[in-house]
C-alpha cells in the first residue's frame, strides 16, 4: 500500500554554527506533509530554511532533531544514493566532462540498467524536455535554458518518487522563466511525480503550486493552497511577503464566528471585516489587512458596508493597471484598479485632488493579530 504522504518532515531541526561560533537553527521545528503527486513549494527569502529542508530530504544534510520520512520510511542517516528522490540543482550541476546523453544516462547506469533500456529511456526523457538531437553536445555548448532542461531530464529519467527542485529557474531570463513555469507544471501533471519546489519568487510559487509553505527564519509561517495563502494570509508577515497590502491599526468592537466589527481611528469609522485568527476577542488591538486590488472604486453613493470617501493623492499608470494613493480619513490607501476602459483620453483618468467613493467588501478586510 502506498504511503499516505510522499514526504513528511516531523518536527525537524537543523542547526549550523555561524562563523562567529554561535548556533543558528536554519530549520527550526518544521513539520510538513507533502502528498503524493502534489506540486509543493517552499517559499521564502534567503536564509529562511527552505533549501536546508530540501537538502535534508535529498540526504545531503541530516536533521539534528526530528525525522524525514520518504514514502512512509524514516530516512535516518540513509545516504542520498539510496533515496528514491532526485534533485534539480540551482546551478544545474551538470557533468561537464560528459555529453548530454551521458549526463542523462548517469542515474540509469548507477541502477545498472541495460544498454538498450538506457538508450530508450534517455531518448524519451530528452524528447520530453524538447532536447531531441542535442544528445552528443557537451553542457557548455548549450544555452542556459537548454542546460536547465538537461538537468531536468537527468533527474526525471530515473522516475523518482519525488523530484526536488532548488530554484531551478533562477538563472533564466523572465520570459524563459515564465515558459518553463508552465512547462514544469504540465510535466508534473503528466508524470504524476511529486514535485517539491524551492523558490523565493512568490509569483512562481503561486503559478505552479498545489500547496505552498511560506517560511521565514527556519519556521513555516503558513501552509496552504495559493488561494488560501493569498486571500487568507494568517499573519502580517505572510500578507506582506506575498503580494502587497494596506495595514491599518484598529480595535475589535464585536466578534462573532463569521463577521466582526473593527473600530479604525485612522478611517474614522467602523469596518465590517473577517477575522483570520480564531482567538480574537473584543477590545483587542488588531491590524486590518486589505489588498490594494480589493478596494473598489465606485460611483454609486448608496449605503454599502465599508463605504468611504477619499481624495486622489497620486496616480501611477502601469499599463494594465492604475495604482492610486487615496487619502481617506487620516490614512493613505494603496488602491489598484484594472484599466478596463481606455485611458487614452485624459478625462477618463483620475486627477489629483479628485473626490472618489470607495467600497471594501467585508470578506476582503482581514483582521489579524498585532505582532
Amino acid at each position, binding site marked *: 500500500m502506498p504511503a499516505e504522504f510522499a514526504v513528511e518532515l516531523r518536527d525537524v531541526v537543523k542547526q549550523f554554527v555561524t562563523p562567529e561560533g554561535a548556533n543558528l537553527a536554519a530549520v527550526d521545528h518544521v513539520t510538513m506533509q507533502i502528498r503524493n503527486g502534489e506540486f509543493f513549494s517552499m517559499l521564502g527569502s534567503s536564509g529562511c530554511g527552505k533549501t536546508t529542508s530540501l537538502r535534508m530530504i535529498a540526504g545531503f544534510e541530516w536533521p539534528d532533531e526530528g525525522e524525514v520520512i520518504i514514502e512512509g520510511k524514516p530516512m535516518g542517516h540513509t545516504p*542520498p544514493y539510496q533515496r528514491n528522490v532526485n534533485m534539480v540543482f540551482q546551478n544545474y550541476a551538470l557533468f561537464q566532462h560528459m555529453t548530454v546523453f551521458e549526463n542523462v544516462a548517469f542515474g540509469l547506469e548507477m541502477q545498472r540498467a541495460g544498454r538498450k533500456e538506457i538508450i530508450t529511456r534517455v531518448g524519451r526523457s530528452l524528447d520530453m524536455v524538447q532536447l531531441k538531437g542535442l544528445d552528443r553536445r*557537451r553542457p557548455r555548448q548549450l544555452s542556459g535554458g537548454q542546460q536547465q532542461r538537461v538537468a531536468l531530464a537527468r533527474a526525471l529519467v530515473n522516475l523518482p518518487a519525488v523530484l526536488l527542485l532548488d530554484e531551478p529557474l533562477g538563472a533564466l531570463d523572465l520570459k524563459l522563466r515564465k515558459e518553463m513555469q508552465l512547462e514544469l507544471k504540465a510535466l508534473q501533471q503528466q508524470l504524476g511525480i511529486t514535485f517539491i519546489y524551492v523558490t523565493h519568487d512568490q509569483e512562481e510559487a503561486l503559478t505552479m503550486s498545489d500547496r505552498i509553505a511560506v517560511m521565514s527564519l527556519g519556521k513555516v509561517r503558513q501552509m496552504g493552497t495559493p488561494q488560501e495563502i493569498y486571500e487568507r494570509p494568517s499573519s502580517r508577515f505572510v500578507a506582506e511577503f506575498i503580494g502587497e497590502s494596506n495595514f491599518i491599526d484598529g480595535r475589535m468592537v464585536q466578534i462573532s464566528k463569521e463577521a466582526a466589527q473593527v473600530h479604525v481611528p485612522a478611517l474614522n469609522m467602523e469596518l465590517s471585516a473577517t477575522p483570520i485568527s480564531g482567538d480574537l476577542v473584543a477590545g483587542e488591538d488588531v491590524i486590518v489587512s486589505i489588498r490594494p486590488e480589493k478596494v473598489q472604486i465606485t460611483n454609486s453613493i448608496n449605503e454599502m458596508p465599508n463605504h468611504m470617501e477619499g481624495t486622489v493623492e497620486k496616480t501611477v499608470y502601469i499599463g494594465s493597471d492604475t495604482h492610486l494613493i487615496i487619502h481617506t480619513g487620516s490614512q493613505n490607501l494603496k488602491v489598484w484598479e484594472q484599466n478596463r476602459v481606455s485611458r487614452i483620453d485624459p478625462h477618463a483618468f483620475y486627477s489629483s485632488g479628485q473626490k472618489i467613493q470607495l467600497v471594501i467588501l467585508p470578506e476582503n478586510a482581514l483582521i489579524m493579530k498585532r505582532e
Partner: protein
Amino acid sequence: MSMLQKLRENRSSQGTLLALPTTFWMVALLVLPLLLTTVISFGKRSPDGEVIYTFTLNNYIRLAGFDPNCPPADGTCFNPLYLQILGRSLSLAFNTTVLVILMAYPLAYFIARSHPRKRNTYLFLVLIPLWTNFVIRVYAWMMLLRKEGVINNLLGLLAGWIGYDFKPLEMLYTQGAVLVGMVYEFLPFMILPIFTSLEKIDNSLYEAAADLGANPIRTFRRVTLPLSLPGVVAGTILVFIPVMGTFIVSDILGGRQVILVGNLIQRQFLDARDPTFGSAASLILMIMTLVVTYFYTRKFGFGEEIVAA
C-alpha cells in the same frame, strides 16, 4: 610620443614586443646550444679531449652498445651498458611518476576538500621543503638512509629492546634509495596541479552524483577522477621530464650503483672529457623524453581544462 601612440594602436607589434625578451633568451640559451650539441654529437674526440668537427655516427653506435672499432662479423663486441642506463632511467622515471601520483592524489584531495581557512596552511606546509636547497635535502636523505644513519639506528634500538639480532640495512646506494629521493623531491610538483584541478570541482557535482545513485567509489571513478585528470596530466609532465634528466639524486643516493642518463652525460662532459659522446647521449635523452611525452599528451592532452570540443 608618436611611437607610443602607434604602439598603442598596433596590437600585433605589441605582441612582438612582449614576446621579444623571452624569444631572445630562448634563442640564445636554448636553440643555439641545442644546435651546437647536435653538431658536436656527430663529431670526434681528439686524444686531448677536444672536439673534432666532422660527421660520424660513432657516438650513436656506441650508445646502442656496439664498438665502432670492432670487426663487423664479430658479435662479442656488443655491450648493452648504455642501453641499460637508458632503460633504467626510463623505468625509474616511470616508477617515480606513478608513486608520486599515488601519494600526491590523496593528499591533494584531502587539501582540496578541507575547510578553506585550513587549505592555505596545508599548501604552505607542502611548499616549505622547497625553501631549502634541493641538494641539501638530498643529503638529508643520506643521513637517514646510510648504514649508521637515523633509520638504521632507530631500528637497531627497537631490535635491541625485543632482543633481536639486528644487522644494519643496506639502504643507501640502491635503486630504492634513489626512488625514495626522487619521490620526495618531486611530490610537491604533483600535489599542486592535482589540488588545483580538484579544488575547481564544485561540491554540487559530488552531490549530483550521489543524488543520481552513485556511491562514493563510483562518484570518484565517474566524476572526481575524470575531472581531476588535467591536474594529474600536468603533474606528470612536471615530474616525468625532470626525473628523466636529473643526476643529483642518483649521484648522492645511488653512488656508483645507480647510474642514470643524467649521470652518464655529466661524467662524459666532466670526468671522461668526451663532449661528443655526452652530446649524443643528451640528444637521445631529449628524444626519448619527447617521444614519451608526445604519446602521453596525445592520449591525455596537456592538462588543459576539459572544454567543449
